[in-house]
């Protein structure tokens, strides 16, 4: 298997993107999941639906609207320009924003499911033992929901690595900036460089398999939960 310098760059860029996106997603998905589990608001189904939208939308549709809203005439574009950041399309930062939106349901839903199955009881017990809300979250909820957070991180990372349509719409195909592995493979195929395409594709297959293996390994019950 021989990888060109451009291939290596694509791989590095992809890993950098996926790592950053996963971290951002974990931070913003946790409060969303907590709200979705505990809120009595009538807006709950709406938020649930919005979070799940990327699951059913073609990536090109999501990418198209992101392109427009992040462009010079869009709401996000106007804001970023007013802040002196320029516009986001065709930049790494733009790719991060788009990927976060695109992978959101893959991170929110596992966290939401774990928190829901945990129920209110652990937090109630912690409160009766004198633990405040922040203390309770870090010392009780987070450790008990750890499998859900791990699943969420793995899924978010893997899904970001595998995206294509959104990147194409938002990022273009700029080496070292937005050219991730999936685009690099596309370029190889376009140029009829099937050997190079094979090398990268096999790498992706291996990666996907390892990720799924890890995921199903995580779901092995590590001792019965007594919370019902």
């Amino acid at each position, binding site marked *: 298997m021989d990888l060109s310098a451009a291939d290596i760059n694509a791989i590095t860029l992809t890993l950098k993107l996926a790592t950053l996106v996963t971290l951002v997603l974990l931070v913003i998905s946790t409060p969303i999941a907590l709200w979705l589990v505990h809120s009595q608001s009538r807006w709950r189904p709406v938020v649930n639906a919005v979070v799940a939208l990327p699951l059913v939308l073609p990536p090109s549709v999501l990418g198209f609207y992101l392109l427009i809203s992040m462009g010079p005439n869009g709401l996000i574009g106007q804001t970023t320009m007013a802040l002196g950041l320029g516009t986001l399309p065709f930049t790494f930062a733009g790719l991060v924003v788009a990927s976060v939106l695109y992978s959101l349901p893959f991170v929110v839903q596992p966290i939401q499911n774990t928190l829901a199955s945990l129920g209110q009881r*652990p937090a109630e017990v912690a*409160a*009766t033992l004198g*633990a405040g809300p922040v203390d309770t979250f870090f010392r009780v909820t987070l*450790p008990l929901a750890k499998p859900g957070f791990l699943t969420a991180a793995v899924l978010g990372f893997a899904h970001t690595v595998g995206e294509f349509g959104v990147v194409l719409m938002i990022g273009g195909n700029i080496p070292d900036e937005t050219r991730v592995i999936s685009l690099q493979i596309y370029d190889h195929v376009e140029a009829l460089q099937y050997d190079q395409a094979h090398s990268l594709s096999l790498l992706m297959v291996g990666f996907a398999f390892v990720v799924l293996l890890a995921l199903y390994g995580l779901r092995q019950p590590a001792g019965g*939960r*007594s919370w*019902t």
Partner: protein
Amino acid sequence: MDLTLKPVMNSRLLSQTESPQPDGSADIRLDIQLDRGDFCLAANLCLPATGVSVLFGHSGSGKTTLLRCLAGLERASGNVNFGQQCWQSERHWLATHKRPLAYVFQEASLFDHLSARGNLDFAASRAHKRKGPQADPAQHHNFDDVVEMLGIGHTLERYPQQLSGGERQRVAIARALLSQPQLLLMDEPLAALDEQRKQEILPYLERMKTSLKLPIVYVTHSIQEVTRLADYLVAMEAGQVVAHGGLADTLSDPAFPIKLGEEAGVVLEGVLQQRDSQWQLACLRFDEQFDLWLRDCERPLNSAIRARILARDVSLSNSRHHDSSIQNAWPVTVESIHDSDHPALALVRVRAGSTALLARMTRKSVAELQLASGKSVWAQVKSAALV
């Protein structure tokens, strides 16, 4: 079941026990209302600051909800005061984690990600954070003492999944104590356990009750737990408090609103006066003059013990029978005659000194003995059980 809300029906009972402690300074006072559409809870209560107060009622009577309101886990409207400390009023809300209480839940509530010791440490390390109105260093629960009292020394390094149901609940109780509460709330802590585990834990609870100066509010639907643990009894039905008062007063009231049927009876508290080793009998002296002989027990002389006398085990006669197998007979005065759960039966309340007993008999016997209020008769107790 009649679901319409009944007003507090027993005014005599209520007025008699309005203030369990005359000074009222350290009492738990609550006056709360909660309307959930299909279920309404309304309670205006003053619970004593010492001993075990039991909230007693059938499932769905609102006793657990009342306990959760007291803990601040449920938001009702109204006032909750613990001694001089206001926990809830119209403008004030003290969050659960700031109230100096601990709560033992019905099912095992240990943190699965921590060992038994980790669970205990979780409570101990947060105990200093909430100082209540009357924090007393003499009432500090020492780690080793609590572990010893609840017999959980062998479980400390194990995880909750590796403990039996009874052990889990004992660790949960120890954890509650190590959070150094000034009020312990227990929500049917034995209900999820089988009979054997219950009998295993009850002695620990009795030990806690006698050795700790910690007020306990205890929810149960079991009359057995009431008779063994309660000092003060609150009866609930359909979200309302229907009677409350000292244990002896409430249980000996024939109008006690929760129908106990065969289980109707009184609890006598007395001193283990003497024992008869020849016949394996022990003597419980109550009211300083009446002796109740029953099967001997392990407890030391002069210790305070409780015996339960069911109404169906008490009979009345106009003269003393000397040719009977019954050992316990006392002269008593008939106080009142009430309906029982069957039209053929009556509940007769009699008084021996200042102690009230209940006797259940047929209406026919009442007529033939010409029982009436004020009449002096003999009460025979066929059997009594230490609780």
